[in-house]
């Protein structure tokens, strides 16, 4: 077999080549389609169906109409877990975005150690949330952890024992895990800004701040939307991290939606209400994704034309 580099030529119109004989290739898509229907589409419809049933996870499933929904919507844990979810989402967005943009712009303009930095930055993304959580749990020990070792008294708090601090620990660990990734995305975006625009701005005498806010930021607008969508929608599914690091505690102060669903379903054996939470999770995710897309403005204007 030859090892050719992927050709640079792009064929934009994919039609004619396949037309007429498409019947002979369609079968190749079948295995993927069937697999995805069996474990993706059917479960998605199934979770909606199960939210109208009563099931303990073992015995028979009884269709009970709105019973599970009524029970779930009355449970004060639902608004609480929604609140926790949004708190983690917003705080981690607020922490990650400015730092990622700053580092991204820096990496784009700094060549010497960029390769090395990119390699090291990528490491947190390779580790499992479980390994990261276990590490931080030990590292944040108020008596034998980071604070004592470095001799910094501020770090010697009972991080995971206080409900206000625990949520910040989650936000920090999330940032630790994902800031490098978002920085790399921003770095790629900044490198695509046409140099002519920056030159023009400098000739016009724009200062460093002005240049950042009038050119760099508007030029990476779509990347900000993409990165924010990944952050926001991704934060709905934080499960491993919370499960291992705080288990939702202390009390229920970090019990986000995904964990609440797991507890209801697999610990309290209330699969009906748990399915209702799962449906809410999907709806919130779709809603947020749409919202962010709207925020991105009319998709028809080209990013290169500038705002």
């Amino acid at each position, binding site marked *: 077999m030859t*090892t*050719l580099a992927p050709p640079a030529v*792009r*064929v934009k119109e*994919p039609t004619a*080549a396949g037309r007429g004989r*498409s019947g*002979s*290739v*369609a079968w*190749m*898509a079948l*295995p*993927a*389609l069937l697999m*995805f229907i*069996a*474990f*993706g589409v059917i479960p*998605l419809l199934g979770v909606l169906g*199960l939210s109208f049933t009563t099931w303990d996870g073992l015995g028979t499933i009884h269709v009970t109409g709105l019973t599970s929904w009524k029970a779930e919507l009355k449970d004060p844990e639902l608004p609480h877990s929604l609140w926790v979810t949004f708190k983690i989402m917003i705080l981690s967005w607020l922490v990650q975005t400015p*730092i990622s943009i*700053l580092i991204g*712009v820096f990496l784009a*303009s*700094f*060549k010497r*150690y960029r390769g090395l930095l990119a*390699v090291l*930055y*990528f*490491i947190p993304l*390779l*580790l499992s*949330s*479980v390994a*990261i959580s276990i590490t*931080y749990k030990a590292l944040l020990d108020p008596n034998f*952890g980071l604070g*004592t*070792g470095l001799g910094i008294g501020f770090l010697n708090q009972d991080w995971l024992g206080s409900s206000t601090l625990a949520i910040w620990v989650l936000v920090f660990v999330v940032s630790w895990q994902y*800031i490098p990734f978002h*920085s*790399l995305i921003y770095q790629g975006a*900044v*490198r695509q800004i046409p140099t002519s625009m920056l030159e023009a701005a*400098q*000739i016009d005498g724009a200062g*460093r701040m002005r240049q950042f806010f009038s050119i760099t930021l508007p030029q990476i607008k779509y990347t900000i939307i*993409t990165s924010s969508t990944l952050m926001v929608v991704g934060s709905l*599914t934080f*499960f*491993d991290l919370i499960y*291992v690091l705080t288990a939702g505690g202390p009390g229920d102060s970090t019990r986000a939606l995904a964990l609440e669903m797991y507890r209801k*379903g*697999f610990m309290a054996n209330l699969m009906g209400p748990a399915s209702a939470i*799962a449906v809410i*999770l999907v709806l919130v*995710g779709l809603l947020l*994704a749409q919202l962010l897309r709207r925020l991105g403005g009319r998709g028809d204007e080209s990013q290169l034309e500038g705002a």
Partner: protein
Amino acid sequence: MAAIDTSAPARKGTTPLGRLLRLNWLGGSFAWLWLVVVMVPIYWIVITSVKTSENYFFTNSMLPPKEITFENYKLVFQNDIVHYFLNSVIVSVGAVVPAVGISFMAAYAIVRGAGNRWLRAMNTLFLLGLAIPLQAVIIPVYLIIIRLKLYDTLLAIILPSIAFAIPLSVLVLSNFVRDVPRELFESMRMDGATEWGTLWRLAFPLTRPALVTVTIYNALGIWNGFLLPLVLTQSPDKRTIPLALVSFQGQFQVNVPAIAAAVTLTTLPILLLYAIGRRQLLSGLTAGFGK
């Protein structure tokens, strides 16, 4: 402040773009500071793993030990880590190979059969599938696995892992198959090659970099997966690495160096793979986002 000095000699390490952006000290200090933040836990876990458990509570947690011990690693090996490791290998390979294979076939069909409206509909379905989080469908997946009598087997983890790897794999791979010049497909057809033959002899070698990227990316996600093993298995001998780590944590309790050794040991293979395939992964991911 606003002086234009394009004639100024290039500052070391700065790109032309960097001069235009005027290398900012704020971003610079954040980048290096964040590097320290990223490295501290990694440094800590490695030095802690070679401390003796008796000494751990009496030494400074941020300083390496005076004498290195591998007792903790021995303890981890005595606790079946090799078995859990093999489970993770079986699950990862068993899921990634078929997932990438069928995704590649689907991507090929989508590009080659672009006129077919069923294939177009299927492509849309996969795109929508990108938005389905695994957490949201875990309950029905659990139900399906029970009904298939697969509960508490490694196959129970493998099947949903394959399905959830498909949407992104198809998206990335079809972008790359689309880049294969049409003339090459035509000449294959002239030579009398079947679509199946073209898939393997033309599209496969030309999209190999993308296939490697997709394989690494999926393998990483499945290797580190926690929810599926947690919900779909229960016996200790079916544990994968993340589940084993959590149970070690419960078992070793205050023996922090042993936990550190377990974390280090289970992370090492990933770091090694990364060292080998990092160029592929980084460039592949950047290309994927650029499209």
